[in-house]
């Protein structure tokens, strides 16, 4: 925990004063709201407006605490916010423990802020954070199917009214303003929508309120100068009333809330539709090409223009739909902060976590699936990687271990790295316990084999089992999870210097750019992201070395794998061959095909049927002519070929 920032200048002091004042206000609101929600403990119909207010209060405190450099308050607010989010989503109900965690968290938060003000040591927040995290994670235990509860049910008995409020100076002077009006309406029911509108040149605020209030109660509102009309619930259109000319003709101002929660399934559906559009357009293009000869040049140009525009718009649509699904990876990373703290405490090590690239956006789908693998890797880094303090000092390192987690995008890939400056993996020990040679004569470590061995279920070189990483569980889970996401895991380690794991993931799984190639008359597709280079090969340049074909490329030996042989098809006999270079550095391999046809945008359809679960095939897609083709899984093909060549040698 950093010491309170020493006051640098008057201005910053003033800034801090404002921060304390603002926190004071929010804490007051929070305490009031907490008292109000106490009666909902154990109930399902918790007041969402109050949860919203609590959520916002902590959200703001998190933000301003970050600005003044008070991470303890930032983290605590973040956890409170997290728990409230879960409650708001209705995935779990407020129980006694959760409520107490909120109350205790608020108390500690107040203490943290006070300590900062009085330059006293910051109190420990760990216990509160753990209590809140426990409360939050209850959601996972009972991820209910009814998380999207029917919104109709609760409003069944209430009426929807549309209120219009015109702000004027006179009303404002009399204390009637948009806030007071809103508060009054809120006391009667739930405001489902608030929109500023322009009517006849005047700015008017429209409130849609769903309420069970009686006519008399509604009449009471008249002193506010509101006009009221009923809302037809089914169509949400506004009934024309004599006094209120409605202006539904201002669509630009019809934006009500800043965000909407959407079921991921719906987005998947949308993505699927976009995918189908992509295929249809490809088909259209093919048909266009076939009639090219029979239309005039002018007609052709205008057709082509429409076609190209269509293509561009489709690409934009695809990108936008994809973007809707994207969330910053900070959602995952922030969680790691607490994981690191917890494990560091458990293992009694001092660890500093360095996060970078938190703004990197990834598919929401990946967020949940990345959490576990990252957790395992971080755990491993701290409990296996980082040495004890004494060990570090005697090795000439700083007593505090460093863990870094970073994310960045590269083309269509997201690259996540998790590293430590610990002792590094003991390659010799892995070598002796597995019996597999991992170092070459000149001492070069085969990292990909090393990764394979440590990812074997049950593998461990560790003698005693510890709570955080257990024994041998973890790496196989990580490797499997990453493989399922169509990603690639790699490792680099150096004795005494540290270990870094690298995860490469495709940005999206549904639509991708693929290279299309033919082998013996068959067409195949391969993800562009896995190809580093496409080269032309003169068959006479291929040399055979111990049953393996190789070629000299950029003054390096490049092993070749003929797809024709992988799929037991005839080799091409004449003319040049093409090859995709997959993998980089020492793992580069040339995947030889007869001919590369080109680059296409394809829609990936998974082959879920176990009968068609062929190794080496990642999925299927269709080209413009409707012909289905297979998408190859490069990594599996490489693995399979290596196994074959090894078994042939022995």
């Amino acid at each position, binding site marked *: 925990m950093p010491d309170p920032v020493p006051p640098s200048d008057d201005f910053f002091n003033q800034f801090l004063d404002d921060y304390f004042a603002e926190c004071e206000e929010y804490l007051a609101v929070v305490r009031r709201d907490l008292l109000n929600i106490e009666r909902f403990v154990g109930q399902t119909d918790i007041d969402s407006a109050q949860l919203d207010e609590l959520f916002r209060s902590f959200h703001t405190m998190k933000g301003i605490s970050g600005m003044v450099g008070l991470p303890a308050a930032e983290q605590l607010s973040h956890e409170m916010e997290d728990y409230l989010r879960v409650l708001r989503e209705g995935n779990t109900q407020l129980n006694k423990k959760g409520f107490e965690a909120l109350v205790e968290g608020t108390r500690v938060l107040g203490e943290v802020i006070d300590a900062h003000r009085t330059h006293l040591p910051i109190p420990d927040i760990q216990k509160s954070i753990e209590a809140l995290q426990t409360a939050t994670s209850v959601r996972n235990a009972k991820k209910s199917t009814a998380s999207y509860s029917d919104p109709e049910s609760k409003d069944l008995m209430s009426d929807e009214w549309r209120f219009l409020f015109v702000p004027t100076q006179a009303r404002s002077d009399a204390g009637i303003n948009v806030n007071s009006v809103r508060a009054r309406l809120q006391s009667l029911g739930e405001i489902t929508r608030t929109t500023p509108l322009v009517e006849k040149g005047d700015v008017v605020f429209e409130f849609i309120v769903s309420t069970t209030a009686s006519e008399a109660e509604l009449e009471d509102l008249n002193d506010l100068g509101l006009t009221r009309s009923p809302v037809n619930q089914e169509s949400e259109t506004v009934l024309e009333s004599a006094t209120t000319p409605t202006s539904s003709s201002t669509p630009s101002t019809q934006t009500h809330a800043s965000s909407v929660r959407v079921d991921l399934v719906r987005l998947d559906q949308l993505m699927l539709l976009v995918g189908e559009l992509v295929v249809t357009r490809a088909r259209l293009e093919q048909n266009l090409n076939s009639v090219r000869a029979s239309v005039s040049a002018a007609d052709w140009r205008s057709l082509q223009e429409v076609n190209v525009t269509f293509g561009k718009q489709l690409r934009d649509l695809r990108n936008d739909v994809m*973007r809707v699904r994207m969330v910053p990876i900070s959602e995952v990373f922030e969680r790691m902060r607490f994981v690191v703290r917890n494990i560091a405490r458990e293992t009694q090590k001092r660890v500093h976590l360095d996060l970078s690239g938190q703004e990197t956006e990834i598919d929401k789908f990946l967020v949940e699936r990345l959490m576990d693998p990252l957790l395992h890797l971080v755990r491993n880094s701290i409990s296996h990687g980082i040495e004890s303090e004494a060990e570090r000092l005697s090795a000439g390192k700083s007593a505090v271990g460093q863990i870094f987690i970073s994310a960045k995008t590269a083309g269509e890939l997201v690259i996540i790295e998790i590293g430590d400056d610990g002792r590094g993996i003991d390659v010799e020990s892995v070598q002796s316990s597995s019996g597999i040679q991992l170092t070459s004569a000149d001492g070069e470590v085969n990292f990909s084999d090393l990764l394979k061995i440590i990812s074997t279920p049950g593998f461990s070189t560790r003698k005693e089992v510890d709570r955080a990483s257990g024994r041998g569980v973890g790496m196989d889970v990580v490797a499997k999870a990453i493989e399922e996401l169509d990603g690639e895991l790699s490792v680099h380690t150096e004795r005494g210097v540290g270990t870094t794991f690298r995860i490469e993931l495709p940005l999206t799984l549904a639509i991708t750019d693929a290279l299309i190639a033919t082998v013996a008359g068959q067409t195949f597709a391969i993800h562009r992201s896995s190809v580093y280079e496409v080269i032309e090969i003169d068959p006479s340049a291929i040399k055979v070395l111990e049953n393996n074909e190789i070629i000299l490329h950029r003054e390096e030996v490049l092993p070749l794998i003929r797809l024709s042989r992988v799929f037991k098809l005839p080799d091409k006999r004449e003319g040049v061959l093409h090859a995709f270079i997959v993998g980089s550095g020492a793992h580069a391999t040339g995947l030889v095909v007869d001919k590369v046809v080109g680059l296409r945008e394809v829609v990936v359809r998974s082959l879920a049927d176990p009968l068609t679960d062929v190794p080496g095939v990642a999925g299927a897609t269709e080209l413009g002519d409707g012909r289905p083709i297979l998408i190859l899984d490069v990594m599996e093909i490489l693995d399979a070929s290596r196994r074959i060549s090894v078994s042939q040698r022995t």
Partner: protein
Amino acid sequence: MRRMVATSLSNLGQCKFEEAANGLEAIERLVLGPADLMILDLNMPEIHGLDVLKFVRARPLYESMPVVVLTTKGEESVQTEAMAAGATLYLTKPFTSSELVAKVRGLLPETSDEG
């Protein structure tokens, strides 16, 4: 946050400020009296800052009023959106008060009595 901005701006002198706690109130304030400049936090309760911006820009009176939007780090797409919606410039939180003051000073007319 709002208070911090107000404190920073008090350094400008000769300006009058009005504060609004949320987007609705901000719109109301603008309706009730003209303003020379607006500082708009995009993350506000009730109505998103972007919607406030769009609404304000649609009013002839405020077509050319400078608007400084405050965004959060990592929301680059929102910044672009805000600029497209008519923001004059944006500041990414966290910023220092001198940054804010410098930007605001550059946008204000030489002598002004309202802000």
